[in-house]
C-alpha cells in the first residue's frame, strides 16, 4: 500500500489528537496519560500519527519536500501502535499505523532513509540478523542443549529464538530456559541454528519491505522442508512478523505461538507445575507486538463503499485491528500461577501500554529517544512498588535493562520465562 492509498484517511483526519494520548477512558493520572512516545519527545504535531497523515498529504500535494526534519519526524517513532488504538476508539476505521508505514516505505523508496539505519540493514543483508553478528554463530546459544537440528531432521514445531536471544549473551539464557521447558513438556521441536534468519519484522517496520519478503521466503521454505507446522517464539517482534506480516505479505499458513501462550496452556493442562515460591512483587509490560498488535490477521481484499449515502464501510467488511484481542491474559495467567508472585499493574496496560522504546528502528537510529521512552516506562513500573518489571520480548527487556542501568535504578528486569524458571 502507498501513501496514495491512505489519502482519504488523511483527508478524514480532524487533528483531534486522540493519537497522542492513551484511550481517554483509560486515563488514570496526569503523569501517565500520554500514549505516543514520539510526539512526547519530538513535541511538534508532525511527530504524531495525525501529523504524519498530514505530512503524507502535504508531500502528495507538493506543498512540502522531504527535509532532514521531515525524515526525523517520520522515523523517530517506535511504530508501537498506541496511536492506532486511541484513534480507532472514535475514528473506527482509520488506519494511522498502516498509513505511517506507507509513508516510511515511500521515503525508503525515494532514498530518504536516514543513514543511521544502514548498519542494521547491512547486517541483515550480509548476516541475516539485526545485531551485526556473523550468521554462523546464530545457533551457538543452544550448542550444548541437545536440540534437534531441523536443517538435518524434521519436527512438528520449530523454536525460533530471534536475533536478540541468539546473539545477546546476557539474554540468551531466556531462550535456553524456553528450550528446557519445551523438552520437559515433551514437545517435538527443533531449531534451525545457523540457518535461522531474522524474521524481517524490524526492517519492515522502518519501511524496508523487501527485507521482510527475503526473510519470509527463507524462513518459510526452511520450515516447510523441516516439516514444521507451528513456530514457537519467545520474541514478540518475531511473533508479530510471523503471525501478521508473513500471513499478510507472504501468504503464510503456519501456526504461530508465543512462549507465553504455550506456558499458559501448559499451566492450564497441568503440564507445567510451578511449585517453588518466588516471593516477588512484579509488574508486567505488554510488548506492543504481542499485545495491541498481536491480534490474529484476517485476510481481506476489498474496497471502500458507502451506505446511508456517505457512511464509509468496506465490501466485504474489513477486519478491524484496534488492540481488542491482543495477547493480554496469557502472560498474566502465568504470572498468577507462580507461587509467591504478586502482580501489580501499571496504569498503562494492555492496548494502552506505553512502548519500551525499542521498536520501529528507534533503538538503532534514535538511541536517545529510545532510551528516554524506556525510562518513562521504568518510572511507571517503579511507581507500582514492584521489585521487577516482567515482559515477554527480548527487545523490551534489552531497552529496559539499559535504561535501568543508565539511571542506576534498582528495578529488576526479567523475561517471564526467567520467573517461570525460578518457580520450577
Amino acid at each position, binding site marked *: 500500500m502507498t501513501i496514495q492509498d491512505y489519502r482519504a484517511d488523511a483527508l478524514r483526519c*480532524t487533528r483531534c489528537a486522540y493519537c497522542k494520548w492513551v*484511550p481517554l477512558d483509560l486515563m488514570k493520572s496526569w503523569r501517565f496519560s500520554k500514549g505516543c512516545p514520539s510526539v512526547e519527545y519530538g513535541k511538534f504535531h508532525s511527530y504524531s500519527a495525525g501529523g504524519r497523515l498530514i505530512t503524507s498529504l502535504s508531500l502528495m500535494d507538493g506543498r512540502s519536500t522531504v527535509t532532514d526534519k521531515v525524515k526525523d519526524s517520520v522515523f523517530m517513532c517506535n511504530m508501537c501502535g498506541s496511536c492506532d488504538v486511541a484513534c480507532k476508539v472514535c475514528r473506527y476505521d482509520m488506519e494511522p499505523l498502516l498509513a505511517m508505514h506507507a509513508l516510511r516505505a515511500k521515503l525508503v523508496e525515494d532514498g530518504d532513509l536516514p543513514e543511521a539505519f544502514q548498519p542494521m540493514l547491512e547486517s541483515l543483508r550480509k548476516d541475516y540478523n539485526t545485531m551485526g553478528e556473523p550468521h554462523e554463530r546464530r545457533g551457538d546459544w543452544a550448542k550444548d542443549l541437545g536440540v534437534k537440528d531441523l536443517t538435518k531432521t524434521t519436527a512438528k514445531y520449530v523454536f525460533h529464538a530471534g536475533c536478540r536471544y541468539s546473539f545477546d549473551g546476557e539474554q540468551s539464557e531466556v531462550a535456553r530456559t524456553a528450550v528446557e521447558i519445551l523438552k520437559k513438556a515433551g514437545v517435538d521441536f527443533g531449531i534451525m541454528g545457523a540457518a535461522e534468519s531474522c524474521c524481517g519484522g524490524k526492517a519492515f517496520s522502518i519501511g524496508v519491505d523487501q527485507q521482510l519478503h527475503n526473510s519470509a521466503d527463507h524462513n518459510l521454505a526452511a520450515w516447510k522442508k523441516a516439516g514444521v507446522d507451528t513456530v514457537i517464539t519467545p520474541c514478540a517482534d518475531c511473533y508479530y512478523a510471523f503471525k501478521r506480516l508473513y500471513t499478510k505479505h507472504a501468504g503464510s499458513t503456519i501456526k504461530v505461538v508465543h512462549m507465553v501462550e504455550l506456558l499458559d496452556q501448559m499451566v492450564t493442562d497441568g503440564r507445567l507445575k510451578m511449585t517453588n515460591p518466588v516471593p516477588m512483587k512484579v509488574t508486567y509490560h505488554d510488548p506492543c507486538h504481542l499485545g495491541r498488535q498481536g491480534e490474529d490477521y484476517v485476510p481481506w481484499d476489498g474496497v471502500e463503499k458507502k451506505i446511508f449515502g456517505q457512511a464509509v464501510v468496506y465490501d466485504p467488511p474489513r477486519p478491524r485491528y484496534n488492540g481488542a484481542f491482543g495477547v493480554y491474559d496469557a502472560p498474566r495467567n502465568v504470572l498468577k500461577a507462580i507461587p509467591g508472585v504478586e502482580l501489580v499493574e501499571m496504569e498503562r496496560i494492555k492496548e494502552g501500554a506505553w512502548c519500551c522504546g525499542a521498536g520501529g528502528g528507534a533503538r538503532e537510529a534514535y538511541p536517545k529517544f529510545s532510551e528516554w521512552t524506556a525510562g518513562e516506562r521504568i518510572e511507571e513500573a517503579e511507581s507500582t512498588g514492584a521489585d521487577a518489571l516482567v515482559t515477554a520480548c527480548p527487545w523490551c527487556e534489552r531497552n529496559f535493562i539499559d535504561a535501568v542501568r543508565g539511571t542506576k535504578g534498582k528495578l529488576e528486569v526479567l523475561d517471564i520465562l526467567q520467573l517461570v524458571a525460578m518457580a520450577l
Partner: protein
Amino acid sequence: MEISRDAYRAIEDIVGTENVTDDPAFLDSYAFEWLAELVRPNRSHYMPRPWAVVMPASTREVQAVTKVCNKYKIKIKPISTGWYHWAAPMKDNEPTVQLDLRRMNRIIDIDEKNRFAIVEPYVICAQLQAEAMKLGLNCNIIGAGSSTSVVASACAYFGGGPSSHYMGNNSDNLLGQEWVTPVGKVVRTGSLSSGAGWFCSEGPGPSVRGVTRGNLGSRGGLGTYTKCAIKLADWPGPTEFEVKGRPPGYRLPVGENFRAYTIGAPNWDAWANCYYAIYDNGLGYIFHRQLNLAGANLATALWLTYIDPTKTLNDVETLAKDPEIIAINEKARISFQLILAAQSVDGIQLQDKILDQILSQTGCYKVERYCQQDMAEFTNMYMQRLGHKHCNFIWAGGYMGSWMQAGTPDFVKGYVPTAIKGFEEDQQSHLLVECGGDALMGCGSTLGGGGYFGLEQFVSYDPASDASIDACIKHMEDAIADCVAQGLPLGKELLYLQIGWSDQRIWDGMAKAPQTFVLDFQRQFKEAVDPNSLGDRNYPWLPEKWGQAPAQAK
C-alpha cells in the same frame, strides 16, 4: 512565505532551536484543520500556513516571543490542543507565528479545600478529571470532549458540556487567568492580581473576563492565556475509573450511588416538560442529549454495533432493518441521557423516586434497552469521561454542527421541526449521511442549575469527497435561510462559515447586530491591548462608525 531571519533567530534565542520550526511540512501540520474544506478556496483542507511554529515553555517565554512579534509585526496565534479551523492563522500572506503551548502542560495545583485547580494550557480535561477524582472532585468537561484544553474552554471558547447543568459552564467556572496580552504584558485577573490567590475572577483586582471571553471567547484572537484557575465540583464516585471491556466500547460500571439512564419522550412537548421538571427538582449530575448524534434513524443500530468489538460498521446496515431494533429506535427517537449521582444509596434512591414521578407526570419513560447493563455501562463511560466525543466523525470522517441556538426548552422545541425538516431535505441528495432529520445533540443545560441550552444538528459528510463537502456547505446555507425565514438567530453554521469570509463581509453582518456599541467598545479595548493588531478577528469588533451610534443617556 518566510519569517525574517532576524525574527526567527530572536525567537530561537528565547525558546531554543529545537522548539521553533519553519519547515513547510511541519507548518502544514498546523495549517491542516477540521472544517477548513468548508470555508477555503477549492475546498482546501489547509487554512493559511503559519510562518513559524514556536513552543514556549513558560509565561516568560510567551511574553518574550510576543515582544519579538511586536517588534517585527508578526501576528500571534496561540493553540493548546489545537483543533477547529479557527485555531490556524486567519489570512493568507499575513506573517503569523503559531504558539503551540503543548510544553505548558502542568497541573500547578489542586486546592482541595477550596475546590479549584490551577492549570496550564496543555492540560486536557481527562487529565484534570483523573487527578481531581483522587481528591473526591470533578471538573466540567466541555462538549468537545476530554481531549480538549481546560484553559482554552475556560478562557477562550464556549465552555459548556454535559455536566454544566450540575457543575457550571467553564466560562462561569473560570476563577482567574494569567494572560499575556498581544503587546506582551502579563495581566493577572481577579483576586490573583492582588496577591490573594486564585479563588475569584472578579476581584479584588481587575476583572476582564466579560471582555476577553464573553460567551464565546476570543478563540486565540487576543493574546495568550498561560494559566487559569477553574472551579471544581464534588465527585461522589471512586478515586479512579475501573474501566471494563474491550475497545472501542469501554464500559464503566454504574456504582450503587449512581444511575445511567436514557430517557425517552413520546413527543417534543413531553420532552420539554421533562427538562423543566429535571431543572425544578435539581436532578442530574450529567444531563445531555448525546447518543442521538448518530441520527435518530440509526442511533440504536450504531451503538449496539459499536459496543460489540467483533462487529464493523457494515453491521449497522443489517441491524437498522431489524424490526426489533426499529422498535427500540422508535422508543429512543426523542431521548436524552441522564446520569444521576448521590453521596449515598439513600440519596440515589430518593432521586430515583423523584425521576420516576417526573416521568409519570410528563409521559416520558426509561428506554429499556438503553438502560440494560451493557448500554448503561457504556453510557456511563461515555458521559463521565467524554472520551468518545469524536464519534461525531464515525460515519464518514466529517462532521459539522448546524443550529445550536440556545434558550429554554420551549424555545429549542420551537426550532426542532424546522431543523429536522431542513436536514431531511438536504439528505435527499445522498451526499450527506442519511441518518434521519433529527441528529440533534446538546447539553441538558449549559447554565449551572438548568434552564438554558441548545441543540446542534450533527451533519455527517465525507471530507474526502468534493460533492459531499459541497452538500455540507449547501446545508449550512439552507440552515441560515431557514433561520432567517423564521426570524431565528443564526446558529453554529454561521460561526463556521464566517472563518472563510472577508473582513468587510463579517463587519457588514455585525453592523446589523442589535447592539453594535458592544463591538465598538471591544474595538476600543482591542486598540488598547493590541495596538499593533497582532491578534486576529476571532476577537470580534467593529471599525469605528460602522454600526449604530451608541444609545444616548437620558
